[in-house]
């Protein structure tokens, strides 16, 4: 029997990882109402992580990116609609698309994601200048890469560095220009950042820190030929990737009168200020369980976790979202994995003496905030378990000779002080 509090229809705006997962999880929870999944891209829902990795290298075709085949949506009665939503009417509970069509909703889920930030510099429209977010972006970037000799990457974040690695492996000369003094400055600790500086430099990539961009220059046919830095120096380039972060897509929410502040504001159950509208994934600013601070996170895990939580609530099992954030990036043969969320750490404890395989434990006081693992997948999974169940591990204990996350986790289980874990 259907719970009478369930909406009779759910419309999801955005068919990225989070939008797709909302629809899939609703059906897994036995939701029987209608589900409409609206995609601004003319493609089946697909995975984004390979776009800056395997897909860019030509190791995966488009079908390999699909989260599910077309038949899945038919079998699950998920109505996939291709189109751009132009307006939400919260009073009438309907969304309108650019082609004039409209869809009424019992509940609306905004999974609108984010859009790459651009730089307001002359020449940004030149041919050969790219951002990377969609499969279409990746196809265009791949085509540029095939004929490129010198690439300049603006921004040493994950997208920029992942692309830089692929371009280097393709034999292209690569320079990365970063405004801050180290790579991944906003997302990883200094020891991890230092490792990535070394990794890219040892693979022949030039990294320039503390340098801003002034202009992009082109030839008579509007092809990019050089990048001019703020100090007036010029870097020759036939390909430029701008990887300076993303802006959440909040326009629809703002226009609909929802509260927006650096993301669509939601509560712990991912409800916006309109009880009939939720927001998930990259576009949603949600409260962190531990600190209460509202943040946006850009990751597959976050999109999937949010989607599952909202789908569960709509299907009658409400709960606060409290999943541990985790993230990964592959560059060359190196994987960095991050568990937890670092809200400003005071102490770093590095585990492992191998410069190419280590973990960094980040503490605020005696509170373990996050663990970054470079080529240490077992540490990462141990850290996820530890941070999920909660731990009183102190920096002094972690810094003791021979300390291992896995052994520590096992000792907790054996003492019976924590829920047993399969190890």
């Amino acid at each position, binding site marked *: 029997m259907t719970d009478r509090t369930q909406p009779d229809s759910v419309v999801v705006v955005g068919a990225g990882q989070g939008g797709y997962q909302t629809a899939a999880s609703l059906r897994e929870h036995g939701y029987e109402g209608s589900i409409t999944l609206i995609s601004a891209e003319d493609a089946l829902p697909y*995975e984004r*992580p*390979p776009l800056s990795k395997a897909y860019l290298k030509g190791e995966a075709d488009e079908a*390999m990116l699909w*989260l*599910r*085949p077309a038949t*899945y949506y038919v*079998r699950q009665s998920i109505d996939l609609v291709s189109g751009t939503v132009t307006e939400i009417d919260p009073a009438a509970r309907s969304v309108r698309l650019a082609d004039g069509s409209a869809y009424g909703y019992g509940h609306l889920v905004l999974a609108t994601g984010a859009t790459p930030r651009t730089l307001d510099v002359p020449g940004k429209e030149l041919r050969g200048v790219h951002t990377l977010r969609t499969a279409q972006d990746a196809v265009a970037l791949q085509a540029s890469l095939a004929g490129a000799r010198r690439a300049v990457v603006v921004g040493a974040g994950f997208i920029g560095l992942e692309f830089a690695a692929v371009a280097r492996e393709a034999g292209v000369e690569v320079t990365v220009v970063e405004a801050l003094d180290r790579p991944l400055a906003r997302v990883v600790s200094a020891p991890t950042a230092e490792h990535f500086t070394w990794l890219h430099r040892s693979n022949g990539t030039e990294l320039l820190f503390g340098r801003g961009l002034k202009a992009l220059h082109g030839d008579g046919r509007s092809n990019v030929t050089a990048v001019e830095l703020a100090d007036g120096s010029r870097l020759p380039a036939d390909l430029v990737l701008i990887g300076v972060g993303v802006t959440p897509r909040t326009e629809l929410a703002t226009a609909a009168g929802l509260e927006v502040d650096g993301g669509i504001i939601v509560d712990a159950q991912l409800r916006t200020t309109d009880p009939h509208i939720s927001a998930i994934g990259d576009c949603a600013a949600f409260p962190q369980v531990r600190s209460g601070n509202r943040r946006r996170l850009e990751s*597959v*895990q976050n999109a*999937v976790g949010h989607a599952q939580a909202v789908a569960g609530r709509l299907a009658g099992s409400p709960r606060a979202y409290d999943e541990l954030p*985790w993230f*990964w990036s*592959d560059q060359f043969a190196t994987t960095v*994995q991050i568990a937890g969320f670092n809200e400003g750490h005071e102490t770093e404890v590095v585990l492992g003496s191998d410069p190419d395989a280590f973990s960094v434990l980040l503490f605020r006081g005696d509170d373990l905030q996050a663990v970054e693992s470079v080529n240490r*997948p*077992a540490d990462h*999974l*141990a850290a996820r*378990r530890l941070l999920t169940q909660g731990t009183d591990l102190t920096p002094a204990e972690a810094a003791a000779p021979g300390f291992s996350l*896995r052994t520590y986790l096992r000792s907790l289980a054996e003492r019976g002080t924590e829920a047993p874990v*399969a*190890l």
Partner: protein
Amino acid sequence: MPKITYVAVDGNQTTIDVPEGTSVMRGAVFNDIDGIVAQCGGNMQCATCHVYVDETTLDKLEPPKEREDEMLDFTACPRKPNSRLSCQLKSSDALDGLIVHTPERQN
């Protein structure tokens, strides 16, 4: 095309053609076979595509590489000698006839 058989906890069996180069994980996801979550999409990040390879077909596989081996210590259901991450098992003629059992839970 190589045929792979998936056996659910309740004993229900499904045999499907999995194109060469496609992983045993993706074969399952693309054919609506339950029991494999694959939260990370096959990027060896999550250990939620754990399977037990049927003992009779274990010799069709190369042993796991180091990283898969480490990840297998963190599966939701207990690791056994025949445990594998199905995202790392790429379909090929050598795998034709492979039988995998999906575990009770993945996370």
